[in-house]
């Protein structure tokens, strides 16, 4: 089995892909112009391209990195290859928060705040319910509570769709839910990126402790680690990162499932290698999905839709490859 460390290659690819994303489009910005615009004063076309596409590239990167990292952390910790970052109902909660804000006619920044708060709220509710239960298997209970809060948030979301004005609010909510990297301005994307980075940094610090949590609570405790506190810490960090991503990009599925599986194929299952790789692959996938979304004709295809259309078959392919891998 090859277990080398192809992270530098992925980082280099991300840099090149980001530059390519910034440089190409209706307003072409040659690379030298773009670089001079990035570091201060460049030609007008390059500055315009940067102003238009910069937030978009940043949103795609932060969204992919967050979903990839959170997905990997959840998959390691819950020892389940099918869990995704919205395990605790974060996506549905964020959708409900955003839809409620859109229903109230709030400004875009308030919609994003509502989505962020909705995501955090759904996860907090799931964690709270799981704590009340005092179960034999805390991991399974947390997953079940996540399913419950996700279902509740989905019901709430459906309600907002029913009461929304079908000519103005309903399309706005629907498009929000389908996801887009083109919504946020530089300030919003930057703030989200900062919040997501804090969550991802916490996950990266947890590192091998996530592996210990995968052994089970009793084992982690007998290794001298505070299992419950560490899991709460990891779940909170992953939830903050996911909520920050969903708040600016809407609901983008599959990336958080796909990136960890691809990363596992490249670097193996250990958290210290898997987490950075999943973060990198997630970011790269979102950049690609974003480019694809504007590649076909004038109308933009929603990224949530594209991520599922590209992600689902790719996931199946990875899953089959992974399971057939000889040891």
């Amino acid at each position, binding site marked *: 089995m090859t277990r080398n460390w192809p992270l530098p290659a992925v980082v280099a690819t991300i840099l090149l892909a980001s530059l390519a994303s910034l440089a190409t489009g209706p307003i072409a910005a040659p690379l030298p112009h773009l670089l001079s615009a990035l570091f201060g004063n460049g030609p007008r076309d390059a500055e315009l391209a940067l102003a238009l596409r910069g937030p978009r590239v940043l949103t795609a990167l932060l969204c992919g990195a967050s979903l990839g990292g959170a997905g990997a952390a959840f998959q390691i910790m819950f020892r389940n290859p099918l869990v995704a970052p919205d395990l605790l109902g974060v996506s549905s909660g964020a959708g409900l928060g955003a839809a409620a804000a859109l229903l109230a006619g709030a400004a875009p920044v308030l919609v994003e705040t509502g989505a962020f708060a909705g995501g955090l709220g759904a996860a907090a509710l799931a964690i709270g319910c799981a704590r009340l239960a005092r179960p034999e298997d805390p991991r399974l209970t947390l997953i079940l509570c996540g399913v419950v809060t996700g279902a509740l948030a989905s019901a709430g979301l459906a309600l907002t769709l029913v009461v929304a004005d079908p000519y103005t609010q309903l399309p706005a909510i629907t498009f929000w839910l389908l996801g887009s990297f083109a919504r946020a301005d530089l300030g919003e994307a930057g703030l989200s990126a900062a919040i997501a980075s804090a969550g991802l940094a916490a996950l*990266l610090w*947890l*590192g091998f402790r996530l*592996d210990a949590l*995968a052994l089970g609570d009793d084992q982690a405790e*007998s290794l001298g680690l505070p299992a419950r506190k560490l899991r709460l810490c990891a779940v909170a960090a992953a939830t903050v990162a996911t909520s920050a991503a969903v708040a600016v990009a809407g609901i983008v599925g599959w990336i958080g499932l796909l990136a960890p599986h691809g990363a596992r194929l490249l670097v193996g299952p*250990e958290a210290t290698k898997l987490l950075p790789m999943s973060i990198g692959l997630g970011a790269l996938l979102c950049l690609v999905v974003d480019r694809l979304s504007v590649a076909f004709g004038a109308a933009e295809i929603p990224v949530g839709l594209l991520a599922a259309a590209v992600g689902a078959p790719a996931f199946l392919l990875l899953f089959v490859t992974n399971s057939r891998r000889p*040891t």
Partner: protein
Amino acid sequence: MNALVLDSLVVGRGAFRAGPFDLACAPGQVVALVGPNGGGKTTLLATLAGLIPPLAGRVERPGAVRPALLPAPGAIDVGFAAGHVVALGRAALSPWSPSLRRSDRAAAHRALHRLGIGDLAERPFDRLSSGQRQLVLLARLFVQEAPVCLLDEPTAMLDPAQAAKVEAAIAALARDGRIVVFATHALAAASLADLVVAVGDPISIGGPADVLTDERLSRLYGASLNVCPACGQSAAATTAA
């Protein structure tokens, strides 16, 4: 104090209770827990590990490091490389770093070599045989700097050759100066321990020759048992209940 002391210890979960246990064991001693299924062996181990609180009485553990616990076979099923599973035994020793230290990995490899399974270090744990898994988890006990090692049925589901390797590893843990407490249904293995605790009804604690007698075992397991005369001191069960 370097001893593990159980002082009128009563253990239990939910409505289940077992005890009281009174026991003192010194470093290097091996204690076998025998008794019927559901008698409280695993609950006693979990209490000694500090995972569940005692219902009454107290446990005095040597040193500040928590006892190491090897769970019943099959409880751990992860895809990490075997060497990583062993190195995680040192998880508590690097409280601020995101990764294990190089020296932890080296210690893991040394422990695997000591048990003669150095070639398994890079193999995924979940692809190993049950005997190999037990040996890998035993190797983790060697790198964990715990003065007390608790093992739950370490030889269950193993063939005689693998079981012998596991028993040799348990003896090596004790030679290093650790207190080893293991639960078992293999009465032959229990008869090699320094102390035997019969967990069930009635509780008896003493040397193997005192506890592993026909009469006491038959009462403990609720079936007529004979100590195998051919095995000398060791006991094997033949039922006629």
